[in-house]
């Protein structure tokens, strides 16, 4: 069978159509790229049109063979796995050729990269369930994240259940999309640019209280920055209240500087950029 590079529109349905067309054209895919990543290549290539009915047929077929794989593919599509489409395509090809028997073996060379990437996605989403920080502005809760994977679809049900009576949004800076929720309805939409408004008095006050709590709860005799970093990698700190510098805790309406939220007895969390070591108790306040 001839080898071929496919281009598609970047949607999950588009990806499914690549699979559909590869079977229809009897072609083996060596790469699958999104249209926007197009680079002129020496290899034979084909641009795939997205056809919803084709996509549906492929997906139904996969679900019939293995609902587990169908779910895995939907999740893998959200991951940052390099050339994820190719790994996913190979998984589908193997599934359709051999049946679902090999799926029990996590170390299977075709399954492993996909399952591993999904694990990474779910692990990141799990951490972010805790690390997302909301600010309240005019009755709406808003938060920002910078994840490696597209976690918003995974986080959606968790936050919608938890804050069912609230209006909230989470902005994903990496993938430039946002999850909006109000009155029982949630949508995820692309959003090119977003700037969080500065806090009002009340909001600034809760930020200060939280930072104070955070800095006080650590036990000085057990100070262990390495352990903290292992559990909470630094790349998450950027969007977390406890690691922001003094300006983050100043209300917009009050020109008088709010005193930096240092702690008499605690360990002050480093502001941005994160420094090292506990600040001496005398220097705080």
């Amino acid at each position, binding site marked *: 069978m001839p080898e071929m590079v496919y281009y598609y529109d970047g949607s999950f349905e588009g990806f499914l159509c690549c699979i559909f067309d590869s079977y229809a054209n009897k072609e083996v895919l060596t790469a699958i790229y999104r249209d926007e990543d197009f680079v002129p290549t020496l290899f034979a290539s084909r641009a795939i049109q997205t056809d919803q009915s084709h996509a549906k047929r492929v997906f139904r077929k996969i679900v019939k063979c293995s609902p587990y794989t169908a779910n895995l593919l939907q999740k893998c599509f959200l991951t940052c796995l390099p050339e994820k489409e190719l790994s996913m395509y190979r998984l589908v090809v193997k599934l359709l050729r051999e049946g679902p028997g090999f799926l029990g073996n996590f170390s299977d060379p075709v399954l492993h990269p996909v399952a591993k990437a999904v694990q990474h996605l779910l692990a990141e989403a799990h951490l972010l369930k805790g690390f997302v*920080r909301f600010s309240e502005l005019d009755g709406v809760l808003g938060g920002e994240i910078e994840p490696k994977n597209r976690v918003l679809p995974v986080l959606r049900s968790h936050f919608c259940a938890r804050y*069912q009576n609230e209006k909230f949004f989470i902005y994903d800076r990496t993938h430039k999309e946002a999850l909006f929720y109000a009155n029982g309805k949630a949508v995820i939409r692309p959003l090119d640019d977003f700037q969080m408004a500065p806090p009002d008095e009340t909001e600034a006050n*809760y930020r200060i209280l939280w930072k104070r709590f*955070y800095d006080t709860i*650590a036990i000085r005799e057990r100070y262990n920055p390495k352990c903290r970093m*292992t559990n909470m990698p630094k790349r998450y700190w950027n969007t977390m209240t406890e690691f922001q510098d003094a300006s983050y805790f100043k209300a917009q309406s009050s020109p008088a500087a709010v005193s930096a939220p240092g702690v008499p007895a605690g360990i002050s969390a480093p502001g941005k950029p994160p420094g090292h070591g506990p600040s001496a108790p005398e220097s705080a306040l």
Partner: protein
Amino acid sequence: MDVLEKLTILTDAAKYDAACTSSGGTRGSKKGYIGNTSSSVAGCCHSFSADGRCVTLLKVLLTNRCIYDCKYCVNRRSNDTKRAAFTPEELADLTINFYRRNYIEGLFLSSGVFRSPDYTTELMIRALRLLREQYRFNGYIHAKAIPGTSPELVEQLGLLADRLSVNIELPSEAGLKALAPDKTKQAILTPMRQIQARNQQSKEELVKYRHAPKFAPAGQSTQLIVGATRDSDLHILRLTQGLYDRYRLKRVFYSAYVPVVEHALLPAKDVKPPLLREHRLYQADWLLRFYGFRAEELLDEQNPDFDPRVDPKCSWALAHPAFFPVEVNTADYSALLRIPGVGVTSARRILAARRSGRLHIDDLRKLGVVMKRAQYFLTASGKAAEGLRFTQDSLLRGLIAAERPLLPQQEAIQLSLFDPVG
């Protein structure tokens, strides 16, 4: 005194309690209420403090005023420290507003004994009721049951909280007499027994009527202080085993004693908290809860304390050479779990993967097996890892080296004290 100052004092006074987990919650979201409890077994960490510990709940005392004089405690009556108390409104407001901002998973409310155990518990109930009923808070609440509280009040507390805990703190009666003269073993065990019985009863009722009230649905836990008294690891682990067996505790927490006071009966103030020992106890506790080990298997009268150099599972493996190597293609689940470097997940994956073909050494790493440790203890299709040669001595050194980078910093420093000199 403003709320910021109260929060500082009452957090500082609560920070030595190790329990900070939201696991085991079963609270689904409820119309008109805010919050639920996350169903994940691992619980949900919202941050990690500078000492590397998970921050999941707003962990504070209602008040640090206390009529008792436990020698090891910063809140003891005789300690000259600033005292404060939250009003129920302040506490409820903080909890809700922290929760809405996703700072926390819920509230962990403890308290010094103000006037009497009953009086304190009544204050706690007032705060929790306000939070549940007026603020319609449906997230996680962990409340401390104070020894000596009357059963009726413990009952009310349990209907408001997801988890209750009674801290044993000192692992032996002698320790209790010397260091916490106001508390007795009996006063600690009574509420524990009540909580267990009520929790059991409420589970049975829930099977019959869907709307039966839930009593502490996430069960109960306790904490033991390690290193304030001379109790051995064996003593502590046996106590733990008994608590899991007889009181059906969900968790036992260990807290390395941080010297906060100069006292003849306590370690001097410059003694470092025994973090490595605490770490080994947590590892052993894990083996009891998930790996099918019993306390007696891990320690005995000849070896009453853990070998600081290797983790308890490796220790057990080294003492039972006849059990190994385990053949991963045929061993049952419980035997797989005994291999150092094989965890619950990788053991399950081995079982599943075996069904579609024989496993070889090279497959194991991908299944999540930590080969650095496991290689000494297993074969796959009759073969050991390529080029593996070791003596009893180099095996021990290999295991120590394999764990070293995984140990938290302070623990690693304490471990280095056991390095051979020269």
